[in-house]
């Protein structure tokens, strides 16, 4: 084994550039024309199809697959995008194995669903490659709407509003739009700068102004926005990362998984990105898997996900868990962190076994670690927002908040799964409601 991989500590360049490139290649490579036709042929064109019902954006999946099968992927793309303007990204990042493909009748019958996600990507890639924007704006309404957050919810809302003829201004705290699509998804799910390309394409509708580096609460206030605009949509992300709340949480080498993922996504050269030899990721969701798998792909020797409940209760899908394990990530379940040990920097992390009700068993163990990622959830920074429901913005129906003229959707709004596709649906539905409200 290569000495660079065996070297302890957090260091860059553990793998050759070619190995890095191979590791971070497209997780589900795009179909070529032949593959798409073969895959599309498998669709039964079900009545009231379960796949479409399972899709949070209710894409008419049998119709778009039939349109692919008959040689009109452009029409297929329009079917997809009319329901989900981020259909390209959703085709890449949706946990299809727990949504459309899980209920595909061919999954039920044969254990092999129609590969809906990849077909969706085939259709949307076709249209995006043509640089065409398939929708036209309606006549200007003279109404102005502010959208806070250029993530999936905000982009979806903004596009639908612009299509209806409203003027939209999107404000985002980060230097680039895209939200989690740009900063928060494993690199092998969004290759070739897809998130940025998709935003550019989406803005092709016209009527949307993007203002980056504008954070709610720092550069603008909700009060100011409601005074200045006819309506406001809040589609902000979860800015806070939950702490481990144990001794040594602040030691050097203990980091937020979301920051690691974001840094990785923005890195120009992966060979320059440092990673530990012994990496421990704490958590059981997609973020934990994304951080763990990418650590491994950067050349970490030992990567372990530690989750406090049983594996069946991990928020990451079975597919994601298998992906991690296939990449050599070890998953330890029913163990919660007790302390981070080390002299300044982390050296070890101590866990205690628990049962599924999180009752400590008294049995503990330590894992060597030179890098620890916190992936136990993010939280909304709630100052200056409408009324909350728990730790998120309370919404009714299509994203109506406690404040008149203010809607919310995506991760900041209560209810719904924290998925890209759910955020897109919420943004779209709020836009329709905003439109109906503004046009009376």
């Amino acid at each position: 084994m290569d000495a660079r991989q065996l070297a302890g500590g957090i260091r860059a360049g553990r793998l050759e550039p070619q190995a890095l490139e191979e590791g971070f290649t497209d997780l589900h490579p795009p179909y070529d024309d032949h593959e798409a036709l073969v895959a599309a042929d498998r669709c039964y064109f079900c009545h009231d199809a379960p796949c479409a019902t399972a899709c949070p954006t209710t894409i008419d999946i049998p119709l778009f697959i039939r349109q692919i099968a008959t040689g009109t992927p452009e029409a297929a793309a329009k079917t997809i995008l009319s329901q989900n303007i981020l259909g390209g990204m959703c085709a890449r990042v949706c946990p299809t194995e727990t949504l459309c493909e899980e209920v595909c009748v061919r999954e039920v019958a044969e254990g092999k669903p129609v590969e809906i996600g990849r077909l969706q990507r085939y259709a949307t890639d076709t249209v995006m490659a043509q640089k065409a924007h398939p929708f036209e704006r309606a006549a200007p309404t003279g109404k102005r709407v502010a959208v806070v957050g250029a993530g999936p919810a905000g982009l979806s809302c903004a596009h639908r509003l612009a299509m209806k003829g409203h003027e939209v201004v999107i404000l985002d705290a980060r230097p680039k739009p895209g939200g989690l699509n740009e900063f928060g998804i494993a690199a092998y799910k969004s290759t070739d700068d897809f998130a940025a390309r998709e935003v550019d394409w989406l803005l092709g509708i016209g009527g949307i102004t993007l203002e980056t580096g504008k954070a709610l609460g720092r550069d603008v206030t909700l009060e100011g926005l409601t005074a200045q605009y006819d309506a406001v949509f809040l589609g902000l992300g979860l800015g806070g990362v939950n702490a481990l709340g144990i001794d040594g949480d602040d030691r050097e080498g203990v980091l937020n998984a979301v920051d690691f993922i974001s840094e990785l996504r923005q890195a120009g050269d992966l060979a320059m990105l440092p990673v530990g030899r012994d990496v421990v990721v704490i958590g059981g969701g997609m973020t934990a898997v994304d951080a763990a798998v990418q650590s491994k792909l950067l050349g970490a020797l030992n990567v372990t996900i530690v989750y406090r409940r049983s594996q069946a209760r991990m928020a990451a899908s079975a597919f994601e868990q298998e992906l991690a394990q296939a990449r050599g990530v070890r998953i330890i379940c029913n163990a919660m962190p007790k302390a981070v040990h080390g002299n300044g920097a982390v050296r070890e992390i101590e866990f205690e076994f628990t049962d599924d009700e999180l009752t400590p068993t008294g049995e503990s163990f330590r894992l060597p670690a030179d890098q620890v990622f916190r992936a136990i959830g993010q939280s909304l920074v709630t100052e200056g927002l409408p009324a909350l429901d728990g730790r998120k913005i309370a919404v009714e129906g299509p994203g109506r908040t406690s404040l008149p003229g203010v809607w919310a959707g995506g991760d900041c709004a209560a209810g719904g799964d924290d998925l890209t596709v759910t955020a897109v649906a919420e943004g779209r539905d709020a836009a329709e409601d905003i439109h109906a409200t503004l046009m009376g």
Partner: protein
Amino acid sequence: MADLTSDFVGIKSPNPFWLASAPPTDKEYNVRRAYEAGWGGVVWKTLGEEGPPVVNVNGPRYGAIWGADRRLLGLNNIELITDRPLEVNLREIKAVKRDYPDRALVVSLMVPCEEAAWKAILPLVEETGADGVELNFGCPHGMSERGMGSAVGQVPEYIEMVTRWVKQNSRMPCIVKLTPNITDIRKPAEAAKRGGADAVSLINTINSITSVNLDLFAPEPTIDGKGAHGGYCGPAVKPIALNMVAEIARSPETHGMPISGIGGVTTWRDAAEFMALGAGNVQVCTAAMTYGFKVVQEMISGLSQYLDEKGVGLSDLVGRAVPNVSDWQNLNLNAISKAKIDQDLCISCGRCYAACEDTSHQAIAMSEGRVFTVKDDECVACNLCVNVCPVEGCISMERMEVGATDPRTGKVVPAEFGDWTTHPNNPMARAAE
């Protein structure tokens, strides 16, 4: 393993699977390889009269339609009879027959409608040692424009006349190949019989345009911007061929006349179906052209297994379904069935529901959890749900017991037979005796 040895009008072959007169049998190289692969016989691609051979187009000569996964369902061709010199074909036929005496070798012929032309070619064929001749009265393109092929096959009097010439000028068995491009297949078959044919073979290809190029606005296959109709064959034509075979087999005028069944035979099952409807053997082309000569091996093993399982010999199979081919008016209207969906096999795709609800009798209910059930009070047993279901055996037709009440009509299922000929709604009904 069942004995598949076949004797068709005195022509013996180790199995009833022959390659039809077509591109696969155009030359010695192919025919030898076909025999090596296991084919029981071949009908050599049609020979024309002596002289400069015909020419073929130099652009595409085939067109096709496909099913799911691009499975070839129908093939169309505009190829003519052999475009190789007569003497070359005759020499090769002789060589092949000499080396494969146990295999059937029949020679397909097409020469002008003049007795002299037939008198000239028949001795040449006889001299090769071939087992028989097949008269190509079916080819629907190119040759028909010159008064041959289907131009003969569409006129029963010509069929009878030419067949008679052949029988008078040759001692070889004579099979007359029929075109389906006519209204009533029984008429040409009767003509062949009157002319003294030993057998008929059918069907030849069907006039067809397989597709239209929507950029060139021309039929495909397209040659320099134009297309001509071709002859259609392959799995898609099998139902048409089966019906025509059955019509000849059950017609009193032609009943018992040997038939060589042709038209979309792709598997052993297709072959068995043709034989059950009266074909003494089958001829295959498209399956071989799609998958190669090896397909015959599945046909041999499948038919053997079937015969073994049924405990019958090959000759017992021939014509066994013919007595059950009837006319609509003789179907038992008192045989009442209802569709039944096997919930264990159902994958809840809902296609039966969409088909029935949108286009038929609204006889399938869709309930909570995508459970599909048949409404017996609406079901007319049309079978559409069975046909659109993607899972074989999931939906079946179950016959109601005599004495039960049909919830659709409220009437008791009668024990006795009752067809349209005696039905009270039929103004022509005969009084039941």
